[in-house]
């Protein structure tokens, strides 16, 4: 009897934790609604994943594995707008720290405009040709870039994007996550504070890259008249930019070294103070390249 009293709390705790573990998912959800082939699809999820793919049908399909603290999934249509929203059970203090993750798989007409908003959910998109806006707080974002503009933004998540060489306007930002961009083309603005930027753009029109402490690495080809600007406070800048007809360049660092692959020597900016700079022109110099850092190193090359 004494033994039973001793074991009772442990048994209760074991049962409770087993119940909690088992209730991480609380069911599934499926719905399909008709949608405009060129409409707008908005998706929001707090915790889990959001996977979006474009397809050839004029319909939106939603399949979800629901987390324990999910109240419902709303799918609503208004005009050419389709909205999918995972609604948590009301718990303001822990709205984004729920134990249950909802995994959302959504198929949208491929020419849709896509708007994904998540907190801790990872987001992926593939095969969407319309404009995309993908945002998370801490979730990672992986996306295929179509021929339309894209805005991708995360606070602490990492961004991984892949294009097909079709020109578009790209706005990418993360605070602490890394950013990787491959096979992109067009105009790019990418910023991070402490993450690393690794981007490949070919051909590039206007490129603006900025970090505070993260390194920046660019590889690509600059169009005629392109404007390239990369800046970091303490990160290194590594730029390998082929061109159609050369570029004029201006590189400056306060305490870091400046190197290049075309044998132009960096000059001291002053006789007594710190600082080096390197200016010049390669080829016809139609594009412009500006690289600036305080304590990072600069490495510039006019070929990939």
């Amino acid at each position, binding site marked *: 009897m004494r033994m039973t009293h001793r074991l009772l709390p442990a048994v209760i705790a074991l049962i409770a934790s087993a119940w909690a573990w088992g209730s991480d998912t609380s069911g599934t959800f499926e719905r399909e609604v008709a949608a405009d082939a060129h409409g707008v699809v908005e998706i929001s999820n707090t915790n889990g994943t959001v996977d979006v793919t474009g397809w050839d049908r004029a319909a939106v399909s939603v399949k979800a594995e629901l987390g324990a603290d999910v109240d419902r999934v709303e799918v609503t249509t208004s005009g050419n707008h389709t909205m999918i929203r995972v609604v948590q059970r009301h718990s303001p203090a822990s709205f984004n720290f729920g134990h249950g993750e909802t995994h959302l798989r959504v198929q949208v007409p491929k020419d849709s405009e896509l708007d994904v908003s998540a907190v801790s959910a990872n987001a992926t998109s593939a095969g969407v040709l319309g404009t995309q806006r993908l945002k998370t707080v801490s979730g990672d974002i992986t996306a295929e870039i179509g021929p339309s503009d894209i805005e991708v933004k995360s*606070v602490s998540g990492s961004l991984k994007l892949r294009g097909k060489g079709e020109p578009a306007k790209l706005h990418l930002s993360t605070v602490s996550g890394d950013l990787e961009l491959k096979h992109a083309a067009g105009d790019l603005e990418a910023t991070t504070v402490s993450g690393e930027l690794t981007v490949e753009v070919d051909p590039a029109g206007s490129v603006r890259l900025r970090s505070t402490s993260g390194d920046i690495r660019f590889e690509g080809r600059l169009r005629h008249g392109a404007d390239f600007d990369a800046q970091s406070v303490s990160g290194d800048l590594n730029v390998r930019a082929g061109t159609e007809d050369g570029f004029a360049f201006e590189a400056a660092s306060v305490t870091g070294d400046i190197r290049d692959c075309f044998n132009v020597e960096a000059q001291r900016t002053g006789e007594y103070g710190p600082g080096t700079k390197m200016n010049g022109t390669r080829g016809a110099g139609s594009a412009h390249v500006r690289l600036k850092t305080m304590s990072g190193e600069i490495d510039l090359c006019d070929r990939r």
Partner: protein
Amino acid sequence: MTTRGPKDGVTTLRELPRAIEPGRDLWPQIESEISGRGATAPAAQATVSTRRGHGTPLRWLAAAAMVGALAVGVWIGRSVLPGAGPAPLAQAARPAGATLPAAWVSDPRYQRQHEELMRSLGAQLAALPPASRVKVMASLTTIRQAKQQLEEALGKDPGNALLQELLVNTYQDEMRVLTDVREASDAGKGI
């Protein structure tokens, strides 16, 4: 008494004339110099000014360069910071000894926005997922350290346009992060 000139050769002090009379009365000109009036004063002043101008060209060049750098800094600040119109920088976290141009730090609108965001930062961070909160705090620390390093470097080299530009952009990055955190902390809206 015969007045002997230098060409005659002077062998002793006694041979020098005791007085040499000027060819004209100099007092009116002296009087006008003293009183700052008179017909001959402007010519004399012009001579002095010209000599001063030739004597210190570097000082004027340096001053002009400084003014130019300040103008560029102000222009950058007003062009890139959030919101339309002028939005220069705040004095927040400026270490003693840093010599930031006054125009950068005096805009009340920027200061107000920055203070407002900083005031609510704690609550906004608390609303973020724990892992994200840690990363954001580390990034804000990175920005603060970058600002400090730039300000210290500017304290040693106030006219350095590169440092000024990097500092302005770092302030802008800080505002962007603060704004992102605020948006991210809005429950259920993502960012």
